[in-house]
């Protein structure tokens, strides 16, 4: 994928729950090599967009294009195999698996083996497994030495910020073309959040394209190249952090009409 070419596009993406339009006719693009943020007040439809892209539920209307191909309606494992990994707003780790095993499951899509290979374990399957373990360790060491030294601990025994990092490691394991992170700093204290954003910059430098949902505006402004702002399921602004920061409708959505009038 050449740098700057559109990697993920949504075209008229719409999702209706009952009478509620959670996402309404949304068009937005993530280009290869970018860090793009999706922001908006509570209930703006950010997570719904993620769920539509990653295949938790199909869109009511519109399409999701990834590398130019229509992926709307594909099941999550298919989407993941196409090259989109994600994390969740509420941590979803395999709590009773070890740290290393968690990452290995993330690596799963890259392992090609069949039942026969699993039982007989010919040399090439054993080698692929060894490589997977080495790669999982490499990813852990990329993020934090703490994760490496705790690789045989079960995931639920890690500190909260480390669990967040582990979820990120699991998502990175399949070497996705696009990483989608749903409020990765939720529940972290400010210094942990800053540290986490350093990690995001770091993995971006490794060549990952990142789509981020964030609540914490100061975090988003520092790290993203472009920002898309949602409110009530529709896009109300788009642009660089500076453009978005000055946008009247964004201020209004976040702070209310009066505050917007005051700043104007």
């Amino acid at each position, binding site marked *: 994928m050449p740098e700057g070419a559109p990697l993920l596009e949504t075209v008229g993406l719409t999702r209706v729950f009952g009478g509620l339009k959670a996402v309404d006719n949304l068009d937005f693009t993530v280009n290869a090599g970018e860090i793009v943020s999706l922001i908006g007040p509570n209930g703006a439809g950010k997570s719904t967009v993620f769920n539509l892209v990653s295949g938790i539920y199909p869109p009511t209307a519109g399409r999701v294009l990834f590398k130019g191909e229509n992926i709307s309606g594909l099941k999550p494992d298919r989407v993941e195999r196409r090259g989109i990994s994600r994390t969740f707003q509420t941590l*979803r780790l395999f709590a009773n*698996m070890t740290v290393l095993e968690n990452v290995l499951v993330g690596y799963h899509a890259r392992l090609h083996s069949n039942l026969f290979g699993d039982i007989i*374990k010919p040399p090439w399957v054993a080698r692929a497994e060894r490589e997977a373990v080495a790669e999982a360790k490499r990813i852990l060491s990329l993020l934090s030495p703490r994760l490496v030294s705790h690789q045989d601990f079960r995931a639920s025994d890690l500190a909260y910020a480390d669990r967040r990092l582990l979820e990120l490691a699991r998502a990175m394991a399949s070497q996705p073309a696009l990483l989608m992170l749903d409020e990765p700093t939720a529940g972290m204290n400010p210094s942990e959040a800053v540290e986490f954003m350093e990690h995001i910059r770091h993995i971006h430098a490794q060549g990952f394209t990142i789509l981020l949902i964030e609540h914490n505006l100061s975090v988003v402004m520092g790290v993203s190249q472009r920002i898309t702002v949602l409110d009530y399921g529709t896009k109300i602004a788009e642009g660089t952090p500076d453009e978005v920061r000055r946008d009247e409708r964004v201020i209004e959505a976040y702070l209310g009409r009066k505050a917007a009038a005051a700043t104007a």
Partner: protein
Amino acid sequence: MAALSLARRRPRNLLGGEWRDNPWVRRAVVALVVLLAFLYPILDHSDPRVDTAYVAEIYILLALGLNIVVGFAGLLDLGYAAFFAIGAYTAAMLASTHFSVGKSTISNLLFTIGPGGIHLNFFVLIPCAALVAAFFGLLFGAPTLRLRGDYLAIVTLGFGEIVPKVVENLGGGSGLFLGRFVCHGALHHRHCANGIGIPDLTGGINNITGIDAPPNVNLLWIHWSWQTNNPRPWYYLGFVIIAISVIIITRLRDSRLGRCWVAIREDEVAAAHAGVNITGTRLTAFALGAAFSGFGGLLYASQLGTVSYDQFFFSVSVSILVMVILGGIGSIPGVMVGGVVIAYLSQTWLDTISAKLNTLGSNIHHAPGPIGAFGTWLATAPISTAKPLILGLILVGMMLLRPQGLIPNRRRARELHPETASEAAEENEELWTVQTGEI
């Protein structure tokens, strides 16, 4: 400090201490058990007792198979006996006098087909039974494994009831005779069609009899014949099949596939987003589980020489589930112990207990008052027929006292007991020592 407290957090288990974690201790225990199991039929000269051990082996195979479905993949299957039936009937249909085909006999090393029936070589039948059972596992699983938890349990319950009924109704009986091809030569001596116009496939209520035993084996110093009343060759046959099964199942558990089963059990959504095909992975578990009960069915049918559809109803499914839960869901040695316990309980222990209690009753029935009345009742009480009651009590007791089973799988134990009382106590103790400045 943190590392210390983590290292101390271990679920309690039957054998207690942490020496169980030592791989050499584990290997030594396994080697000892295997050696004892291997020598048992030589040391024990009682044929009936070795015969009971053979039944235990069949139970072990069934428990191992169901453990893949329930223990590894976390799918509650209440109709597992259906696959046991399918394994048994595969053996019955492909290695007996049931189907008479044509007028002349074709015979070779692998099979014999003719008016005398279809007789597949037993050793060819072993993979066949597993494959047929696995095929039906796929067939039943494909439409149903999208369901979860309770719904899946109900559907499997349904299949468990349907299969023996279908077997019953695909037997002979009066009706329109359409298909000639299957029981061509048998037309004269058997009612060759049933109510729905299909030839007699399963023997129906008449059962299938005359199922072949394995052919004699003469390899080096091994000379085994399964045609005599000696149960030892059967025992060793089961021993070999269990050994192979345990190796296969252990490898599956530790493979990429085994990891996926755990991941799905822990968090289905996250697993899907890690690229795991949920339905496919579950279906594999279902089919593999079925395959091992195919082995069980084959061993059962060949030794008994006859199968009957009414041996595979719900109570059998429940018994197998009891073995798995009693032994320890997800634990390979655990479910094997569970199988052995249930086999001996139902084959001998209940009868022994019953006889002892009856004797006790007849000894005290002359006593005055209520004790004598109790003795009179006890002397004739049919305790050995109360098997379901006792199994039920075991289940209730286990769930209350030891939900993780006799030899628990560590991960499963944690899932069931996320924070056991002892762990909480340890934690309190730690806090206390920190406060008082010890260590």
